[in-house]
């Protein structure tokens, strides 16, 4: 299944966009999740909260199936790794901060907060694979090729849009891959238990703070360097295309 690319092969591109947007309707509007929740409540002896979580889980499985069929097993696992990382960091940091600053719960009961957090976690592990699939279902190169057939101002605006899309695709790809690379090559930058002196030195409990600072700085600078590195080449390429197209337009 690793080479299957059903969604990206759907043509024309606007049909592909409509299909992808239709798949993502529950994420953006909540419909038909609310209707399905009401139906399940009537059929099964469960609370409204459990019915809602059940519906979101079924939807998550549907999205994962779409990603599996469109991008293959390897990509699905990559997207899920990113999704679970984001979901877990959100849940864990939220739980810690609610212990430190209980007022952020706004007087909600423990059960109400738990329901909100579980639902949020499921939404994140659903929406992240879907969003990456949508982003990778369109090719900046094809967009540029189509733009070469256009004329005048629309062509230039289109080239700006194509460049922006290509840069965003690039940043998303390299930064999420960084996580996989660092987990193998520089685990000390990702996991506190790999930091220097951990569990051996008397100060091991305190040295987590310098580690947090170093890890965050390393992440920020690595992300910025990787994000900006190929921009000069990309800009140069688009400028050349624009120049050639403008010269061709001027020719009688």
């Amino acid at each position, binding site marked *: 299944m690793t080479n299957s690319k059903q969604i990206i092969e759907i043509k024309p591109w606007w049909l592909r966009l409509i299909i992808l947007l239709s798949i993502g309707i529950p*994420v*953006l509007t*909540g419909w038909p999740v609310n209707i399905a929740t009401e139906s399940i409540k009537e059929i099964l002896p469960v609370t409204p909260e459990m019915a809602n979580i059940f519906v979101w889980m079924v939807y998550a499985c549907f999205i994962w199936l779409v990603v599996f069929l469109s991008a293959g097993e390897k990509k699905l696992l990559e997207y899920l790794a990113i999704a679970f990382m*984001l979901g877990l*960091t*959100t849940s864990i*940091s*939220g739980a810690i*901060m*609610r212990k430190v*600053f209980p*007022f*952020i*719960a*706004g*007087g*909600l009961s423990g059960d*109400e*907060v738990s329901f*909100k*957090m579980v639902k*949020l976690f499921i*939404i*994140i592990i659903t*929406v*992240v694979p879907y*969003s990456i699939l949508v982003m990778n279902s369109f090719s900046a190169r094809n967009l540029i090729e189509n733009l070469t057939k256009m004329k005048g101002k629309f062509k230039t605006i289109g*080239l*700006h849009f194509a*460049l*922006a*899309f*290509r*840069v*965003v695709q690039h*940043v*998303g790809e390299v*930064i999420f891959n960084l996580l996989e690379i660092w987990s193998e090559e520089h685990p000390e930058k990702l996991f506190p238990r790999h930091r220097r002196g951990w569990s051996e030195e008397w100060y091991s409990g305190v040295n987590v703070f310098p580690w947090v600072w170093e890890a965050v700085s390393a992440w*920020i600078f690595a*992300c*910025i360097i990787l*994000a*900006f590195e190929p*921009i*000069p080449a*990309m*800009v140069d390429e*688009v*400028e050349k295309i*624009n120049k050639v197209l403008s010269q061709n337009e001027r020719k009688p």
Partner: protein
Amino acid sequence: MPERKKWTFATTGIVAALIALSAIATMVIRIPIPATTGYFNIGDVFVVLAGLWLGPLGGMLVGGIGPTIADAIGFPIFIPATMVTKGLEGLVVGMIAMGATGTSIKRRTVAAVAGGLIVVVGYFVFEAYIYPWFGKYIPTFAITDIGAAIIEIIPNAIQGVVGAVGGLALWKVMSGYNPKK
């Protein structure tokens, strides 16, 4: 920088990279606030950086698009509030910083602080007044009230300070970057 100049492909490249970075920064560190169903994040760092570096239009585009993409992943109800508040944050930071000369930091600090204030005031207005009003007609928006909005002032203020300090620090590092070199 920033001064009024022609919008080039290089500007588009930088704006797109900052949009992606602000979306990722908003997503990676998220602390949910159950009272309002919102969350604390550090995406403002890149919105402030965009305003300081690229001016009002670049700041507005990065602020209005990047964090909004992140909201679509898990918190879609906040899309209108984020698009307006963060877009305004980038625009105002850029407008104030536009008059700064050379590498002067004073005016840029004022711009970054103004950006932080817009985050606090903008979300408060949306959560205390606009969303409850929307909620009368569209029940999905009835998730906050004035009490919840007051609770979120402190996390939003911390977010504003982190955004201002981080944005200024990154501007010092990044302002010399030129994709044409």
